């Protein structure tokens, strides 16, 4: 996937829509171009995504107010354990059948710090180490946010008939 499309896919989930994402990506490319001296080797893609993330935060602060990190994010092991409780494959099949709009709505509803890690992992395909570096957090935080995000999605998409 070309870097530009990659940057756009990430920005689309941080800003919430493709139009604002394009403005943010353009701003990020400007910053990348002016700040090429800060590129210290390694993955150019991860470097660009980090700049996109900063540009998104600037944009969000201006347009939406600050991004809040939930306090309970590290102490959610119990919640995780109590998550989906079924032990058959019916829910997995239901998730596999979920349509794009449904999945997108569920992702959009995630708390931003969880959404960001989920998107970097499952949309952009970054490794845990890359994500940890990018968001300047320990790997444990990445793992906890990722599993939390996925658990929320699984519960929404897998249990959607139960809720109805």
């Amino acid at each position, binding site marked *: 996937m070309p*870097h530009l499309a990659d940057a756009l896919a990430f920005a689309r989930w941080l800003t919430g829509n*493709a139009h604002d994402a394009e403005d943010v990506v353009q701003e990020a*490319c400007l910053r990348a171009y002016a700040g090429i001296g800060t590129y210290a080797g390694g993955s150019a893609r991860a470097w660009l995504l980090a700049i996109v993330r900063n540009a998104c935060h600037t944009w969000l602060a201006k347009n939406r107010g600050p991004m809040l990190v939930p306090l309970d994010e590290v102490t959610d092991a119990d919640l995780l354990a109590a998550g989906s409780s079924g032990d058959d494959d019916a829910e*997995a099949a239901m998730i596999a059948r979920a349509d794009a709009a449904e999945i997108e709505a569920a992702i959009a509803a995630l708390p931003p710090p969880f959404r960001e890690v989920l998107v970097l992992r499952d949309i952009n395909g970054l490794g845990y180490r890359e994500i940890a570096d990018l968001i300047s957090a320990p790997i444990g935080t990445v793992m906890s946010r990722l599993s939390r995000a996925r658990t929320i999605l699984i519960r929404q998409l897998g249990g959607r008939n139960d809720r109805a």
Partner: protein
Amino acid sequence: MTERDGQPIDPGEARLLLHALVDGELDAASASALERRLATDAPLAAERARIVALRSAMRQLPRPEPSADLRRRVIAIGTDASARPRRSFDWRALAATALIASLVAGGGTYWGVSRVAPQDMAGDIASNHRRALIAPTPVDMASSDRHQVKPWLDAKIGLSPPADDFARDGFPLVGARIDVIGNLVAPTLVYRHNEHLISVVALPRAASPQPPAGPSGSSARGFSLVTWEDRAFTYWAISDLERAELDAFVRLFQARAAEKG
């Protein structure tokens, strides 16, 4: 749930590690221990199935394509002097230029070299065409069959622009050669019209200087030069033909491309 061989017994911890297992981020020892446990722990195995299902569902989500407008705006960053790093001849300027090319083109080791100023480009294209006229043969590979020309270009430089033969309209395909323009390697198609040759240079749009809007013409060192673009390439056709005849050729070329969609 008791556990041998050091696997965490806390179910929450096991579920946390499950994600790492699915993502291929677990070391071999932990992975094999967790897999052993999955064999006997049905709820955990069902959770893995759900994670796998979610991952593949997310992979199939449509991805936003950068609009033509965004691509233009990003390319413009590279040509806008005000956005350029201050010292213009150090490695950063070069790296920044390469960066812009790779952002737009992606996977850009081949094209991530540098972009070429438009006026230099026209001059290089004219020089290449002139040399082709003087050389014993204007092509590196002579064939009027696009099924030979395209694979040959693809094998040489990894690019295969459309290479249709227009013999019925008086513009037979002579063959193809590889040109060097600035520091880019470009596929060039050669057509003949009566005793005149036409060189058609095709560069991936990201590597080309400012994309022209619609066919535009000029002259370079006495040759007629017409440039236009489609979705994948920017083209330059150069010839000592009369401008009207060159325009007729370009219309043929564009019409054929439009037929293919």
